[in-house]
């Protein structure tokens, strides 16, 4: 009897524990639902200020810093034997030089008004020059090349020259010209190996300075060999980019602007998506009035632009800084373009322009199509500078202000592009023409 009761007691207790456990589990499940509902509904709209990051498709491009983006398009070496060589900005040599400069500090600048006692420009004797993009760059951007360098916003420069001391080749000076003043600064803590960059290597292309009217053209000295390349095209899905720009995509409204153009807006910001032969392009705009009496340096503005691109899809391809312009509206606009084998890429692919006002990005225009994989290449001999001038003839050359060598884009199909060596001719009336670098025949960027 006692034993039965014990058994009965034990069963009852176990059953009580089992029922209690079930009730406890149900309570826990219900509590988790309540917590979830509280968290879901408890996030007030007031706390949303600006979505800081791009989360819908972060893998489209690469994240870059100012140092990665602000690179020279070309290095120019002028030897003691008066020979000129060009090294591409994307080459290993240029990358090594940039990393070595990061260890050096440029001291404060001294200005010399142009005149008898001023240093000559370009400097006489051996030098190494850096050219950035296709135009002039604000001097404050040059500071980012060096460590702990602080200069005033003096204006724009077209080239930055490095000189070595004749008495001690390990002492360096940098120099550039702004208006009618030549500026110089000593470079300290520069690695000893910097002197190697003052001599041409196997990545250097010999160049000639060809007198042309009142100016000089810089063109290949001999018939260099370049490549004709065929690439696949990759596309970024426009919806990913659009979603990354708006804080609350549920507020989005659409307006059809034309057959090929749609506008997405929440009232505060607008993104238009345009379908072109090369794929989609987007243009983002928002309020863009600059604040009164608030000045931001070009360097701070470029920092804001780079950070914005990183947070909205990243940099596609091998985009680097190509142009900075201060607009009359108080905005600063930066253009970025692609480089192939150390040469500029001419055409609509990978184009990116970012506008900054009062420290914030207010516009961005970019192509969503970029170079995917290289699938074919062949070597091609190009015309030397003198051969090109001969082929163009007097009629065509009369209106030329400058000539640059690079790659032109020729669309083969919706997802294939051919990159062809071309000479870009800048003309007096600010128009641009292209000719095949191999033949001198006219080249059209639209291709097909």
């Amino acid at each position: 009897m006692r034993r039965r009761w014990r058994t009965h007691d034990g069963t009852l207790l176990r059953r009580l524990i089992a029922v209690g456990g079930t009730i406890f589990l149900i309570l826990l499940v219900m509590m988790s639902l309540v917590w979830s509902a509280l968290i879901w509904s408890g996030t007030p709209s007031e706390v949303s200020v600006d979505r800081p990051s791009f989360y819908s498709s972060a893998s489209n491009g690469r994240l870059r810093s100012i140092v990665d983006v602000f690179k020279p398009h070309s290095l120019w070496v002028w030897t003691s034997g008066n020979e000129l060589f060009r090294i591409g900005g994307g080459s290993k040599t240029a990358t090594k030089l940039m990393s070595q400069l990061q260890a050096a500090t440029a001291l404060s600048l001294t200005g010399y008004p142009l005149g008898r006692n001023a240093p000559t420009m370009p400097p006489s004797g051996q030098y190494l020059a850096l050219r950035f993009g296709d135009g002039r760059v604000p001097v404050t951007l040059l500071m980012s090349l060096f460590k702990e360098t602080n200069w005033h916003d003096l204006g724009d420069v077209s080239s930055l020259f490095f000189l070595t001391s004749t008495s001690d080749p390990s002492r360096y000076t940098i120099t550039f010209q702004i208006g009618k003043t030549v500026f110089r600064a000593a470079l300290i803590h520069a690695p000893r190996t910097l002197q190697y960059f003052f001599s041409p290597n196997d990545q250097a292309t010999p160049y000639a300075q060809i007198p042309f009217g009142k100016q000089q053209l810089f063109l290949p000295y001999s018939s260099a060999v370049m490549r004709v390349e065929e690439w696949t095209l990759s596309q970024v899905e426009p919806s990913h980019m659009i979603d990354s720009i708006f804080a609350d995509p549920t507020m989005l409204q659409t307006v059809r602007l034309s057959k090929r153009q749609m506008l997405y807006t929440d009232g505060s910001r607008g993104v238009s998506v345009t379908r072109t032969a090369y794929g989609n392009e987007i243009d983002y705009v928002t309020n863009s009035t600059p604040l009164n009496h608030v000045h931001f340096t070009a360097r701070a503005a470029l920092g804001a632009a780079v950070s914005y691109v990183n947070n909205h899809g990243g940099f596609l391809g091998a985009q680097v800084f190509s142009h900075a312009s201060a607009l009359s509206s108080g905005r600063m606009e930066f253009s970025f373009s692609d480089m192939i084998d150390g040469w500029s890429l001419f055409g609509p692919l990978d184009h990116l322009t970012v506008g900054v006002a009062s420290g914030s990005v207010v516009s961005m225009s970019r192509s969503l199509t970029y170079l995917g994989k290289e699938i074919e290449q062949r070597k091609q001999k190009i015309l030397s500078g003198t051969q090109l001038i001969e082929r163009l003839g007097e009629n065509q050359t009369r209106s030329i202000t400058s000539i640059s060598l690079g790659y032109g884009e020729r669309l083969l199909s919706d997802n294939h592009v051919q990159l062809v060596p071309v000479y870009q001719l800048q003309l007096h009336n600010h128009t641009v023409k292209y000719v095949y670098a191999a033949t001198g025949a006219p080249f059209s960027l639209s291709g097909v």
Partner: protein
Amino acid sequence: MDFGKVKALLIAVFLGLNLFLGYQWWLLQKAVAVYSQPLSDQLANVQSELATHGVTLKAPVPENQPVMPQLHVNYSPVSLRGLSSALWPRSVRVQWPGLSAHVINSPFGSIRITSPGQFMENLNPHFAARQAKFPMKKLSQGLQKYLIKHGYNFASYQQLATYQKGSQTTVIYVQQYNGYPIFSARLTAYLSHGQLQSIRQTSFNVLGAANPRQVSSPISALLSLSQYMDKADLNADNTIQDIRLGYYSSVISDHGWYLAPVWRIDTTLGVFYVNAVTGEVGVGVA
């Protein structure tokens, strides 16, 4: 299957989940604690946040948080005939240079349609000296009386701001929708020594309303502004002079566009427009 063990496992899992969710909720409460404080405390907190960026608040802070939609708008078409009959007396002799003309002249001045929905009236100085010159002390009232009589659709506009620079005065009125100003549809009056020189006016047609939402409080708009300044590293001395709720957009298209509900924060450095739903901040036209 041993249900006892499964149940024990489920209890352990849900216990862990509840602890995690409870911690998340506590973090959320901590983050939004500012919104449960009394208004005066919230304001004091925001003021001290703004002060870290050199901003002083010298404007009354509204307390309303209405439900407002996005407005679908386009330019309201204006015709020279309609403008001349509204701005000038019917008896006046108007010179009509041609059907496709964009400018008309009369002894009262000239009217030019600058773009669809926008026009500019330049007043004849002789007429203005007699009819549109106001004593500086009562300039605002005098101008308003004049515009009620000689303005185009003036009843749908409300005064926004007056800027004085030496003898030059600029008075800005804005079109309103349901009592809220549309900051980008403006009537700007330019005066010199109290005499009206010209008027530039833009009118919108409201085609529809979408996505009505309760707007954020002005306190959170100020908080958004403070965070924007933090992000943009803006620390110049600045004073907030006016805070108003209305509609605005800088994104305009020929095919119609949308205005967002915004808090307009007028400061000495410029005017900030804070989206009253998303909290995004931008700098816009004064």
